[in-house]
């Protein structure tokens, strides 16, 4: 925890399907690296957090404080990767599906 940066960034998360009870029908993978995004999108946002133009404006408006109640932009997944999952269907036939957006590659302030 001490090593984690405060700024919006990708954090490590390994998901084991057994932990969420899906291991009964998922054959492979047993687990995968999902990652997640966390951290602050404070003004001024560095380029490294890839702020959208909207996020930049929102951040400025929040910093100026003219409009009350405007939160910081959110730290969310930017680029994501798909994941092939091999599972058993209702008839116990094997199915392979490639699900999009299953793991985070980069995070951004949006």
């Amino acid at each position: 925890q001490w090593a984690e940066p405060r700024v919006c960034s990708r954090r490590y998360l390994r998901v084991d399907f057994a932990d969420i009870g899906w291991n009964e029908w998922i054959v492979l993978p047993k687990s995968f690296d999902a990652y997640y995004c966390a951290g602050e999108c404070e003004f001024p946002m560095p380029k490294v957090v890839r702020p959208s133009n909207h996020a930049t404006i929102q951040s400025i408006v929040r910093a100026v404080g003219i409009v009350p109640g405007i939160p910081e932009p959110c730290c969310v997944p930017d680029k994501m990767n798909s994941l092939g999952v091999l599972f058993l269907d209702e008839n116990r036939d094997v199915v392979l599906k490639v699900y999009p957006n299953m793991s985070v590659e980069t995070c951004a302030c949006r």
Partner: protein
Amino acid sequence: DPPEPAPPAPAARPAAARTPRGALGDAASALGLGAPDAAAAHMLRLYDKYGRRGARPGGGNTVRSFRARLDTVDQRPAYVFNLTSLQDSEVILSATFHLYMEPHWPRAREEPCRQRVRSTFCHLPPPGPPARRHLLFRSIAQNTAAQGLLRGALALAPPLRGLWQARDISPIVRAARQAGELLLWAQLDPAGGAPGAAGPSAPLPYLLVYADDLAIAEPNSVAGTLQRYDPLPAADPEPHAADNGSADPRVRRASQAPGPLQDNELPGLHERPGRVPPARQPPRPRHELWRGPLGALKPRPGRRERRRKGPDAPAASRVLDFDEQTMRKARRR
């Protein structure tokens, strides 16, 4: 990129890295998919090939395997494939039929002839290559006694040695699916004799259907296919929420949309905070919070109930599902 905390050692692998053969075997055996299950073995190989990032099996995102069940149709053995697990959102790209064939060439008969030249048996002219046999594909809807329409035929040439043959049967599967006849059965033509193209100990054939699931890009699609229970079942006080039996694992959002359906407005979309006094909004039960305003997770029937229904259960209705309260009123009436 911002600095990223160093993950533990396994993180060095991509999300779905190449899987070692041993791991595939372990996974297969753990799920009872032993070596005789050729379909499972083929799927494990496909996973190994396409499970990595960005790879699209057959140009789509889904591959379904269907193992044959040996049955009797019209007093003759047939291979039956139950395709009912195909989803409406899955566009079939191609379908391959995989059949193990044993050699039927007369090599075995020729050997004794060379040794016993004078034998009567050996005066017979040497037999030529065996005649081609045809595998006829028919399709029927579930719970139909009819024989079904002939959807196509495959000419089978016996191989020189026992091996698996893969044949493209995309038009057959597409036509059957289009007709809503999701029980496909394959039978040798009457002149073919034996039930299968191989001996009784030979592995059963299987189908692979490559499809593009158009619904996979929808929000929550992973739960629609992989989540098979309501994660908050105890918090559901309404009896109707757990009584919507259907073999379809997909989430049917339209069927459970609250409110009148006269307009096309999404509930709560244009509501501004503060417009409705909070007192008029009753606290939402946990299961509704899970479902969210746009989509409802369809509760699945219990495992035991599903098993009881079996493959012969009537197909899920394609009309709108009414909520249980409406159905109860209707029954009372």
